[in-house]
């Protein structure tokens, strides 16, 4: 029984327990700190995750998928509590690109890619944003000339996490040059090995263990059978995938926020000042209580959204509410956690500084907090 609330039935508790054990053994705090400091991708641990069958979790059953979105939420909470890198890598590969191939891909693409993904033998990244097309994603300019057998891709994509590890990047490209905004966009899997693809890591404040990159395409030839979904209608097809991403990001914020809260509890119950434990001061203990409360509230919204995903119901609003609240909570928790730990919170010796750096990006990627409010507002008829 976890000391924190869960929404797990017995099977999910058993799975969560197994994930906890693997993560405890393979993503211990020292290792995670080292990956971050050395900007080292945890290759062996990712391979191990695939061996555990986690890379099949939410794939269709015929490809070994046996889990649902509540299992995903539970798993990501646990993984992110130790390593956001591992959780993000899983999300991009399985939830987003794997999910897109499973939902939209032609049969030949599914049978070629999904078994390999399940075994961790093919790796993906996802490319939507561009330099002048961030929150305004549909303004994307990367062009794909449509030939008989192949696309010819030209343009530059930004903020591609895991591009250095990827075999293919699922890329949103404009296939109809005359269409504007949401029309004329298609999704193609671009092989990273192809001629004309250049991957350059971008120095960032956090997320060092799996680098986020700029990817440049110059006359890259992509076979037509690597298109995922239908020609010119990629934008519409992308929306459910992005909603699933928001649920996953909310789950990560919940798990990581819980870890930050747990760290603050551990530190403040041990540290003595003025002859008393820090938690004997209400200014400290009340702050920690608020951290836990926010984390639990985010968790409730996240599981609510995951339940709707499971039921196959539209959940754009719920996914955005969860992502907005859980990411803001995580950021606030990291700020509070750092404050109650004082100089040690600011020190590179403790994990709190990493939460402080990692939390911020959750308010930015996967749709900024402001964009989430736009989505929710639209759903509310505002």
């Amino acid at each position: 029984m976890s000391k924190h609330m869960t929404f797990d039935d017995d099977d999910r508790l058993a799975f969560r327990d197994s994930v906890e054990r693997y993560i405890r053994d393979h993503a211990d705090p020292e290792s995670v700190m080292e990956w971050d400091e050395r900007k080292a991708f945890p290759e062996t641990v990712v391979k191990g995750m695939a061996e555990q069958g986690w890379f099949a979790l939410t794939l269709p059953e015929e490809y070994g998928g046996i889990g649902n979105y509540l299992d995903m939420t539970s798993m990501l909470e646990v993984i992110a509590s130790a390593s956001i890198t591992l959780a993000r890598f899983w999300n991009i590969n399985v939830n987003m690109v794997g999910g897109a191939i499973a939902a939209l891909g032609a049969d030949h693409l599914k049978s070629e890619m999904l078994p390999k993904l399940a075994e961790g033998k093919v790796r993906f990244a996802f490319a939507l944003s561009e330099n002048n097309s961030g929150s305004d994603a549909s303004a994307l300019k990367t062009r794909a000339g449509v030939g008989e057998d192949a696309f010819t891709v030209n343009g530059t994509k930004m903020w591609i996490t895991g591009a250095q590890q990827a075999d293919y990047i699922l890329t949103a490209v404009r296939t109809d040059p005359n269409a504007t905004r949401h029309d004329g966009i298609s999704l193609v899997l671009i092989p990273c090995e192809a001629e004309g693809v250049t991957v350059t890591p971008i120095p960032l404040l956090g997320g060092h263990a799996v680098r986020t990159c700029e990817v440049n395409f110059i006359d890259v030839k992509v076979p037509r059978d690597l298109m995922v979904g239908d020609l010119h209608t990629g934008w519409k097809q992308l929306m459910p995938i992005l909603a699933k991403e928001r649920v996953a990001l909310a789950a990560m914020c919940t798990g990581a926020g819980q870890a930050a809260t747990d760290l603050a509890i551990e530190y403040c119950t041990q540290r003595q000042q003025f002859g008393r434990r820090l938690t004997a001061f209400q200014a400290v203990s009340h702050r920690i209580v608020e951290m836990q409360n926010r984390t639990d509230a985010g968790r409730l919204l996240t599981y609510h959204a995951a339940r709707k995903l499971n039921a196959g119901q539209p959940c754009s609003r719920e996914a955005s509410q969860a992502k907005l609240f859980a990411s803001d909570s995580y950021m606030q928790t990291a700020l509070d956690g750092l404050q109650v730990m004082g100089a040690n919170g600011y020190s590179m010796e403790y994990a709190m500084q990493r939460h402080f750096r990692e939390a911020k990006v959750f308010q930015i990627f996967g749709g900024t907090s402001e964009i989430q409010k736009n989505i929710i507002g639209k759903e509310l008829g505002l």
Partner: protein
Amino acid sequence: MKVLIPVKRVIDYNVKVRVKADGSGVDLANVKMSMNPFDELAVEEAIRLKEAGKADEVVVVSIGVKQAQETLRTALAMGADRAILIVAADDVHQDIEPLAVAKLLAAVVKDEEPGLVLCGKQAIDNDMNATGQMLAALLGWSQAMYANKVEVEGDHAVVTREVDGGLQTVKVTLPTVISTDLRLNEPRYASLPNIMKAKKKPLEEKTAADLGVDVAPRLTVVKTAEPAGRAAGIKVGSVDELVAKLKEAGVV
């Protein structure tokens, strides 16, 4: 050959234990419980024997409160074939003593007739290290405790044991009782597909009374206390100062 593995539900090794206010034991209410790690090694070893074609059925048995079925499900999810739960207590704080456990296991062995009982060398809750030895004695079987390596060949097993000062290799005739030591193997993690499959595996439930064993405690816990906290250390500036301090403390 059938392999029987007793597994115990114990407080998770990662949990910081708290002594109950009345000193009667450790607080187990609302605490994460897991399979005794030494038993996990035994489950792993048995599954490996099965995978190597040396065993054909792996049966796990747990004795204690009803919640021990979670522990059995974990063993089934790791790969055991079926499970037996012997309910012997209602209160999670009631520990069944090694002799009672050994008697219950002996009764199960009579029913199941395994060729090998593989058990953890001890449970991490009370560190008795007695059940395996008592079981072998009650059955009149050979025993090889603290196994570091197990090889089953025909009608015997060759077991490398961890003993004080090194390793000892013994050859025992089957049926036998072997207990596991820490370095025997690295237990696998239960995967989600196997957790789902485990739900469908048979789990038979019995009571201690069904097996005619009296589990009433014969030992009395006089007192349980937390270890004394460590005093803060000091920093010394030189070797001379270190030696002086050690002399002062009367340790050199």
